[in-house]
C-alpha cells in the first residue's frame, strides 16, 4: 500500500476587515501529492469558506503561487514530501507585496499592468525568448515554432524580491524580465525600463531567479538588460564623436 503521512496545514485566513489569523487542519496525505491538492481538500471537506486561487494544476497558468513554509512556491507542482515530513507542518500564506483579496488569494493587477506596459510577448518563437544558449529547458530544440512564453506571470518573483518589498514603484523582476524578452525582437524596448524604478533599482539579490518555477531567470535578464543599455550608450558616444 502506498505510504500515508499525517501532516498539519497552518493556513493564513483573512476575511473582509477582520484581523488575519491562522487555522490548523490535520490531513492524511500521500507524500507525493502536491501542496495544492491538500489545500483543495481542506476546501472540499473541512472549510468551504477557504479562498485560494488555482486553475491549471500543472504549472502553466501561474494562479496558485503561495508562500509555503516561508518560501514562494507554485503549489500545484510542489510535492508535499519536499516541504515537510510525516507529522510535520505546512504553513501556507499568500504572496507578499500584493494586496490580499482573502485568505490565500492576492490581487496581482499591478503585475499584469506592468507586463502589458513593457510589451512582454505571450506567444513567440523560442529564438526570441532570450534564453541564453546552453540553458534551454531539457531537450528542447530551437525550431522556429511559436510557443507560449516561459513566464507564467505567477508573481513569485515579486513576492520574493527584497526591493519590491520596500519600493512599491519598482517595476519588479517579472516586468523587467518581460522587457528583456521584448527587447530580443525589438532592442528599443529596453528603453522602457531604463529608469530609476526600472532596471537600475535591482540590488542583484537574485531571489527572483531562485524562486522562479518557469526557468525565466529574471536576475540574469536584468543584468543582461543593463549590459545592453550600457553598450548602446557607449556606442552612442562613439557615434557622436
Amino acid at each position: 500500500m502506498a505510504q500515508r503521512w499525517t501532516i498539519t496545514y497552518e493556513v493564513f485566513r483573512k476575511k473582509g476587515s477582520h484581523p488575519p489569523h491562522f487555522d490548523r487542519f490535520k490531513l492524511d496525505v500521500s507524500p507525493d501529492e502536491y501542496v495544492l491538492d491538500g489545500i483543495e481538500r481542506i476546501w472540499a471537506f473541512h472549510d468551504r469558506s477557504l479562498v485560494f486561487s488555482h486553475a491549471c494544476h500543472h504549472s502553466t497558468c501561474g494562479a496558485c503561487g503561495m508562500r509555503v513554509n516561508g518560501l514562494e512556491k507554485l503549489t500545484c507542482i510542489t510535492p508535499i514530501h519536499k516541504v515537510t515530513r510525516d507529522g510535520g507542518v505546512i504553513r501556507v500564506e499568500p504572496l507578499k507585496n500584493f494586496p490580499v483579496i482573502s485568505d490565500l488569494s492576492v490581487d496581482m493587477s499591478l503585475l499584469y499592468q506592468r507586463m502589458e506596459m513593457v510589451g512582454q510577448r505571450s506567444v513567440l518563437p523560442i529564438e526570441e525568448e532570450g534564453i541564453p544558449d546552453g540553458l534551454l529547458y531539457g531537450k528542447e530544440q530551437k525550431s522556429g515554432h511559436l510557443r507560449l512564453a516561459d513566464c507564467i506571470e505567477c508573481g513569485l518573483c515579486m513576492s520574493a524580491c527584497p526591493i519590491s518589498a520596500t519600493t512599491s514603484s519598482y517595476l519588479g523582476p517579472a516586468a523587467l524580465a518581460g522587457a528583456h524578452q521584448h527587447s530580443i525582437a525589438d532592442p528599443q524596448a529596453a528603453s522602457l525600463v531604463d529608469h530609476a524604478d526600472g532596471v537600475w533599482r535591482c540590488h542583484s539579490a537574485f531571489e527572483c531567479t531562485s524562486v522562479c518555477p518557469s526557468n525565466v531567470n529574471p536576475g540574469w535578464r536584468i543584468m543582461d538588460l543593463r549590459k545592453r543599455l550600457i553598450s548602446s550608450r557607449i556606442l552612442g558616444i562613439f557615434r557622436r564623436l
Partner: protein
Amino acid sequence: MTAEKPHVVIIGAGFTGVATAHDLALRGCAVTVVDRGPIANGTSGRTHGLLHSGGRYAVNDQESAIECIDENLILRRIVPQVIEPNGGLFIALDDSDLEYGERFIEGSQACHIPIEQISPQEALRLEPNLNPKLLAAFTVPDATFDPLRLALSFAATAKSNGAHFRLFTEVEGFITDGQGNVTGVKVWDRAQDAHGEIHADMVVNATGAWAGQIAAMAGYEGLPITPTPGVMVAFDQRLTNRVINRLNVPGDGDIVLPQRMMVVVGTTSFQIEDLDYVPVIEDQVRQMLERGAELIPALKTANIRGAYMATRPLVGKGSSGRSLARTFKCFDHKETQGIEGLVTITGGKATTMRAMAEKTADIVCQKLGITAPCLTRDVPLLSYRQFYILPN
C-alpha cells in the same frame, strides 16, 4: 423613463460562462458572472489545452468533429495571443492503427478537416522524438492553448463591454417568484464572508460538470449529465512542437501535447460521485507514462512535473464516458420543467466554447426579446491581462 438593459446572471466563470458573458455583453445585455472561485477554477482551467482539429472525433462523433474544426479556425483568428498554432500529427504504430487510418481519411473528408498523409521519414524529420517504428502519419490542424488565459481573454473582453464579475461568490440557492420561476440568485461572498441576493431577468447555469447540482437547486433533479474525470500528466521536457495523437479509436493516454517547456499526456475516462475533489489515481499516472511513451519513447527519460484530474461534463447518461458524444446541449427549463428564467448550458469541449455561448445567448436573447445578432465569430479578444487591469 429610460429602458434598462435586461440583466443576465451567469453562474460559472469557466469557458462556457465567460464566453456567454462576452456574447451577451456584445448583444446589449447587462451581465453579472458569479463563481465560487477564481476564473476557470474547475474543469476549464484543468483541460489538456488541446485546440482540437476534430480529427479525434472524425470517425465516431462527426457532429463534434465538425464543431471542433469550425471553432478551431475561429479561435485561431480571434485569440492568437493564447495559442501555440503548430499543428498536430496522428501516427500509426500497428496494424489496427493502419486499418483505422482508412476510416480516419473518410471521416476527415466528411467533416472538412484538412489532413495530409506524410511518410514516416518526413514525420520523424518534423518531430525527431516520435517513436521511430511509426508506420504512417497524417498532419492535422491541432493546436495548444493556455487554458486560464483563454478564459481570461473572453472575460476581459466581456468586462470591456460592461460585464461585471463576482468571483469567490458561491450560489447558495435561487430567488423564485413563488411559482418556482427563477428571478435571481442567493449568493455567499466567500472573500468577505457576506450573504446577499442578485436579481436577474434571466439566469444561465454554465457550471459544466456541476450543472446537475445547480439545476437541482432550482427543483430539477434529472439533468442528463455524466461527470467523467480523466487524468493528465505533465512532463518537464518539451519533446515535440506538434500535438501527437494515436491514429485509432479514442482511448486512454493517446494524446501528447506540447505546452511551454512541457509536454502533457492524457487522458483516462471514468465516473465519480463527489465532484468537488477528485483524487489523482497513481495507476492512471503510470498508465499515461506507458501509453505516452509508445508515441514518444523519450518520455521515459523525462520527469513528472505535475499530475491532475479534470472532470468532463458529458451530456447524456450512458454506461461508458468514451461512448458519450462530445457535443453540447442547452436546456431552456421553461420548455422542459416549466421553470421560467433559467437556462442551462453544458457538455461540449473547450474548443467549442464560443459556439456553446452563441447557442446559449441565442436562446437567452430570444426569451428576452433581444434581436441583436451574435458577433463573436469576428470580434478579436483583448489581452488576458486586461481582465485584471480593467475596472470591474
